[in-house]
């Protein structure tokens, strides 16, 4: 009863409803189908806009204003018909009027989806197509090395790593933040001056054929494949399909310009003769040894023949050794001095929400909430197991977009968590929770499990959960459109 009343208040309040529909559309990147699925699965519309608020971009303002006016007009039309029907001026006016009044939220919730689709096809699509054609020309004629970063995880980290290390001796440009789709590649191409030694472009695959399309536009001279894991399986269906798309970046380039993180088992089947692997043992003929990891960072030696580099990075975890070794080795192969490489590696630090440690109430929190795949969880739990702490806490809502492998993958998540043996596991109540709990139980986990029903409330009160000497690892985060 309470839900019904709240839904009525939310949906029939025109300003609130118009903001809500645009928020939902914006959260799924203006894709009509996920928006409609979300709309029809929602039981409490008042609780939808919970984690964040509507970002008032130009498109959002336009849609919100359109919705506001549309709903207002329908309501006014309904009231008018009701009035006319009541005074017997229009036959059936009462019923038509009531129908218009009752249905305006439902009607406009769907109209906005149609507008979004039409907008994509008629306006945004053609405009982006023009920009992409132009970008293709810019990339094709660029004299620098164009390094494509592809993979199921670790792309942004690798991009930042290369920018930081190679930037010590070369002029490097890279796609900003986690902007990694064609439209952002096109904007990035426009920003290139032409005198860059190295151009780094992140490929953010989401559906079959994405990487091929990116490759056709960017024309990379080198490719770094950061790893293969279960991600976006709602669209790819299988890991093999995802890996095939990711490895398509290497189709038309010399094999020795393809660098693959071989720590992910799934990558092995796609390795070809001449591809260069890297992992925690080393990269490009350099060997990593004497590795040590703590909450402040990762240290190791990189040796080749009589040469030895002592490297220290603020990045956390054994899984970072491979990418760090690769960035260092690539830098040296491109003519950077040893000093430049050591300095560059020394400047690498965790990126926001990616294995980023900070202190709270005397405890260490490792924020890895941008992680979104099983390999990241494997790396995180491995790190947690290796750290010294009075008490260890592990927090996750699970992984999104795992398709029909959701249950199996989350049971593996439970297994990995159990193996890192934290004192407390905090899960967020959602569709993945019971699978993680099954995995924990199957692995014989004996610690404490807490299930939080309100993730935002939990994150806002982290200081209540930790004390001096604790280490808490937080992995993954679910936005409002996932349940």
């Amino acid at each position: 009863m309470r839900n019904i009343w709240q839904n009525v208040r939310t949906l029939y309040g025109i300003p609130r409803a118009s903001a809500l529909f645009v928020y939902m559309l914006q959260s799924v990147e203006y894709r009509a189908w996920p928006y409609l699925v979300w709309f029809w699965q929602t039981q409490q519309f008042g609780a939808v806009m919970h984690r964040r608020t509507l970002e008032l971009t130009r498109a959002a303002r336009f849609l919100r204003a359109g919705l506001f006016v549309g709903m207002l007009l329908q309501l006014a039309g309904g009231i008018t018909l009701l009035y006319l029907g009541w005074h017997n001026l229009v036959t059936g006016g009462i019923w038509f009027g009531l129908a218009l009044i009752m249905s305006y939220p439902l009607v406009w919730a769907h109209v906005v989806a149609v507008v979004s689709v039409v907008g994509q096809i008629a306006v945004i699509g053609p405009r982006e197509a023009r920009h992409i054609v132009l970008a293709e020309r810019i990339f094709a004629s660029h004299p620098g090395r164009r390094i494509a970063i592809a993979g199921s995880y670790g792309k942004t980290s690798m991009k930042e790593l290369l920018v930081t290390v190679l930037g010590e001796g070369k002029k490097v440009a890279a796609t900003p933040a986690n902007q990694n789709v064609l439209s952002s590649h096109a904007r990035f191409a426009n920003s290139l001056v032409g005198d860059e030694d190295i151009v780094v472009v992140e490929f953010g695959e989401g559906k079959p054929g994405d990487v091929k399309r990116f490759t056709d536009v960017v024309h990379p001279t080198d490719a770094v494949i950061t790893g293969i894991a279960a991600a976006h399986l709602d669209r790819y269906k299988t890991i093999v399909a995802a890996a095939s798309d990711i490895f398509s970046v290497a189709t038309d380039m010399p094999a020795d310009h393809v660098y693959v993180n071989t720590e992910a088992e799934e990558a092995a089947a796609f390795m070809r003769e001449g591809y260069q692997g890297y992992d925690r043992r080393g990269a490009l003929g350099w060997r990593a040894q004497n590795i040590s990891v703590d909450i402040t960072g990762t240290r190791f030696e990189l040796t080749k023949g009589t040469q030895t580099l002592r490297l220290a990075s603020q990045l956390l975890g054994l899984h970072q050794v491979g990418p760090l070794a690769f960035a260092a080795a690539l830098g040296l192969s491109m003519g950077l001095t040893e000093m430049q490489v050591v300095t560059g590696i020394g400047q690498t630090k965790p990126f926001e929400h990616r294995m980023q440690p900070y202190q709270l109430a005397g405890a260490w929190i490792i924020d890895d909430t941008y992680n979104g795949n099983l390999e990241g969880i494997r790396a995180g739990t491995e790190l947690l197991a290796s750290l010294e702490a009075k008490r260890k806490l592990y927090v996750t809502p699970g992984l999104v977009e795992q398709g029909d492998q959701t249950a199996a993958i989350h049971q593996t998540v439970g297994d990995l968590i159990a193996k890192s043996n934290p004192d407390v596991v905090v899960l967020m109540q959602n569709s993945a929770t019971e699978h993680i709990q099954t995995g924990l139980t199957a692995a014989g986990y004996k610690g404490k499990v807490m299930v939080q029903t309100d993730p935002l409330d939990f994150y806002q009160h982290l200081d209540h959960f930790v004390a001096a000497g604790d280490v808490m690892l937080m992995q993954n985060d679910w936005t409002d459109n996932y349940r």
Partner: protein
Amino acid sequence: MKTVAVIFGGRSAEHDVSIVTALSSIIKPLELTKQYRVIAVYITKDGRWFTGEKLKDIHLYQSSKLEEYLAQTKSTGVVFDHGLKLLVPTRVGRKEVAIDIVFPAMHGTYGEDGALMGLLDMAGVAYVGCGVAASAIAMDKVLAKQLAVANGIPVSMFLSFQKADITDDTVGVVTQITAKLKYPIFVKPAHLGSSIGITRVQNDTELTNALEVAAYYDNLIIVEEAVQNLIEVTLPIMGLANNPQPALLEKPLTAAEDFFDFDTKYLQGGKKGGGKKGGTTGSQGYSQIPAKLPKDIYAQAGHVGLAVYTAFGCSGTARVDMLIDSKAGKVYFNEMNPLPGSLYAHNWAQAGVSKVALVEKLIEYALVRYAERQKLATTFDTNFLKQF
């Protein structure tokens, strides 16, 4: 899911402090455990009981909306019926809500002094914290010192007087005091907390005035000789009486000649004389955790604290205040606080116990003690009435 009633506010000078304790250190952490249904029970300054979700919001108390809210809300009733039940008002009447555990967050009179605990014992409900005896003794500074002395725990020299002694013959009382104690001397009402009515005096005139002030607040007055070369420390402790666990010894960063009065403690954030650097902001302002003291003194203070906790029969949590003569290397028991402000969660956090873990442990102790009490026989059948 068990229902926990957090009772706060009350007819006490520490009413507002109690609100902060309940809202910051008890209700939210309890809710975050997702193990309990938490009911906020607010007692007004005139003794009316209220429940409601809005009472969990600190902004209600910080604004002028509290009176408005209370005027529009029906008060809550209490029933003893196989335990404690609240009669919570609804739109059509009142509904009974059975309480499994009570978490008192009351400071001072009618709450921390054992009065509430007596009520809860009568109701036969599990509750967090010290029982009637420990609470009542702790709130009586004279009884507390006498109990400490009886258990071989060192205390500073003290005397006690009834209000009537002072009003009838102030000069005689002053003479008695100066014959046995040396200045500087502290004059305190025996039953008030939060340093209310306490005065530090250096001569007979100040002593006379201080006695009159203390007698204004209380019927029993305690007069203590000040400890020289003073270092004040406090030690939060939790656990059952037979297995107390200390947190970290804490040293308020005040000048040696200062003491924390109510204004300093709660209104100035403990910054009397300017907070010194290197401290932690706790419920009592700036303090050093753990206190930087010679190892043997630190250990001695720990022993005194635990001895007090056991001697008083504390349970759940308490905080023991001690005075150290730094030159003589001697630790004296000063006061025992059966419900530390904000549970001294800041100290426990530094000792490795989070706010959530702290309330979970306190609930656990409450349930253990309750189960043990249930095993005790308090009634038995006799043929006494038949013989009457």
